[in-house]
């Protein structure tokens, strides 16, 4: 009798990893890994297909949860202690500046990665049937990410935080009918004060992260249920190749999926429990024979690459945090507005629009943008995923993405005191 072996085998029940059965069991007998398929296509590993942006976003979220919990040990969400605690984290607490920097830079990184991930999914047409709803969940996660960043922005209770949130919540109060009431509910008062700090804290550390965790679970689960990652564009059928096969109800005029004739009869293993005929995408027929040998076990191929992505993410955040400190200005002073007062950078596009018209720029345009994002997979009935066959969609989305980027850059770098248009290379005498 070997008690150590008994303990080991009570925890890990799988066969040895040298066997194919062991490699499969590692995936589907493990709570944390069973979201993966036991086997994956090699092409899905290619950085040029996904950029691993979904993974990067998820890893940054993990970094944020870890460093955020650490910071909570030294933070009291009440003025003026909140600001004193920030000073402590900056100058007294061991590793305090490093952890705060990691939290700040990961937060910025997560906003960027979510945006880039959305662009990748759009340009590869991966939001199309049957993945429409997962795109909608993705939009919700984008909004939650912005909400988390926004609520976190107030917590340092410095001038930057106070005025960014004052301006940001006032933008929201332009919403007709419900706007002012909603702002008062969010702040727990008429102005940004102690109730606002407490409310933002609770939203930031409990409510919004829980929502993100729940929706992320659905997001990942849907990837599997919608047939795994989309095939890379370069695997799509070349033009002029054999006709596509329709799958769906005979009476239904709409295409449910387009498959190669050979793929129709294909059955998949135990991980693909799908009712009816599985949904396939079009693959180049020359690749069809190679398909079998293109499939490899998730262990170790997928896990190794995911581990590398995790290492790169954490190492990048750590490197940034060693060399750049998160800003901390003087304590919040409601009597003194800094000039210019700016919202967090990802809302500066919004602030730029608001500086022209509060109602149209601050409420109508953003509401339409969110509605348009949600509606994209349902408005775009073109089944093709090839860029050359969806020029209109690509143009519209590119204009949307570029407009946001340009507005943010103008708001961040080209707006000086009094919100005057000032290029970043011009120094203004006496500017605060």
């Amino acid at each position, binding site marked *: 009798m070997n008690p150590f072996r008994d303990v080991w085998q009570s925890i890990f029940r799988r066969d040895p990893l040298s066997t194919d059965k062991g490699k499969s069991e590692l995936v589907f007998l493990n709570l944390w890994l069973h979201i993966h398929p036991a086997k994956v296509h090699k092409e899905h590993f290619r950085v040029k297909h996904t950029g691993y942006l979904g993974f990067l976003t998820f890893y940054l979220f993990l970094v944020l949860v870890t460093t955020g919990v650490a910071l909570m040990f030294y933070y009291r969400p009440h003025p003026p202690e909140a600001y004193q605690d920030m000073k402590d984290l900056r100058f007294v607490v061991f590793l305090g500046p490093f952890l705060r920097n990691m939290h700040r830079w990961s937060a910025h990184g997560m906003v960027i990665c979510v945006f880039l991930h959305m662009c990748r999914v759009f340009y590869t047409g991966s939001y199309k049937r049957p993945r429409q709803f997962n795109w909608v969940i993705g939009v919700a996660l984008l909004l939650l990410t912005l909400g988390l960043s926004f609520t976190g922005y107030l917590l340092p209770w410095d001038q930057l935080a106070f005025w960014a949130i004052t301006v940001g919540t*006032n933008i929201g109060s332009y919403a007709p009918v419900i706007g002012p009431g909603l702002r008062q509910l969010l702040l727990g*008062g008429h102005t940004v004060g*102690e109730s606002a700090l407490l409310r933002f804290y609770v939203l930031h550390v409990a409510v919004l992260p829980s929502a993100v965790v729940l929706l992320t679970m659905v997001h990942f689960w849907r990837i599997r249920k919608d047939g795994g990652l989309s095939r890379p564009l370069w695997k799509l059928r070349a033009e002029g190749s054999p006709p596509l096969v329709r799958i769906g109800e005979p009476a239904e005029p709409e295409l449910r999926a387009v498959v190669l004739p050979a793929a129709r009869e294909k059955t998949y293993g135990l991980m693909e429990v799908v009712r009816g005929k599985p949904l396939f995408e079009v693959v180049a027929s020359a690749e069809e024979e190679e398909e079998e040998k293109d499939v490899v076990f998730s262990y170790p191929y997928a896990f190794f690459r995911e581990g590398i992505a995790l290492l790169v993410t954490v190492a990048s955040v750590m490197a940034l945090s060693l060399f750049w400190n998160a800003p901390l200005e003087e304590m919040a002073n409601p009597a003194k507005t800094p000039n210019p*007062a700016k919202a967090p950078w990802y809302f500066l596009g919004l602030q730029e629009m608001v*500086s022209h018209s*509060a109602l149209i720029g601050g409420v109508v345009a953003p509401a339409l943008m969110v509605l348009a994002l949600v509606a994209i997979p349902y408005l775009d009935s073109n089944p093709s995923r090839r860029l050359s066959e969806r020029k209109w969609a690509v143009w519209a989305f590119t204009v949307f993405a570029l407009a946001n980027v340009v507005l943010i850059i103008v708001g961040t770098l080209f707006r000086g005191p009094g919100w005057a248009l000032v290029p970043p290379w011009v120094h203004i005498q006496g500017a605060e």
Partner: protein
Amino acid sequence: MKRRTFLNWGTAGLGTLWAAIGVSLGAVVRFLTPSVYYEPPRNFKIGTPADFPFGPPTFLADEKIFVFRDKEKGFAVASAVCTHLGCTVQYFTSDRRFHCPCHGSVFASDGAVLHGPAPRPLEWVEVTLARDGQLRVDKNKVVSASYRLMV
């Protein structure tokens, strides 16, 4: 059970369920609305009339108000909160106008919008003389730009 009985009970049950959900949502909103606001009072005293000079308005930073005193017309109090996005405006004696640092709104000395994205003029609030001879300002009572208190 009769079909009619089943449908009656079913309708009543579903109705009760929806009513309960509605009431609960209302309760959540009411719970989140503070019954007491722990924030600077909106109705406060600012001192005796003699504390305020004639000429350019006096800025009270904590209360975010400008106190105007004119020999013929008397006292008036304007809110320093920009009607655009809530930044605190500054009064420039050089051009006798209010300037907002956030988005460049400019207001005339009577609060009217001269320039910029601000949608409404600056708010004038009620100023009265309290029994103890101090000036009392009530930010909850918005008055017209021509409102004056003669002392």
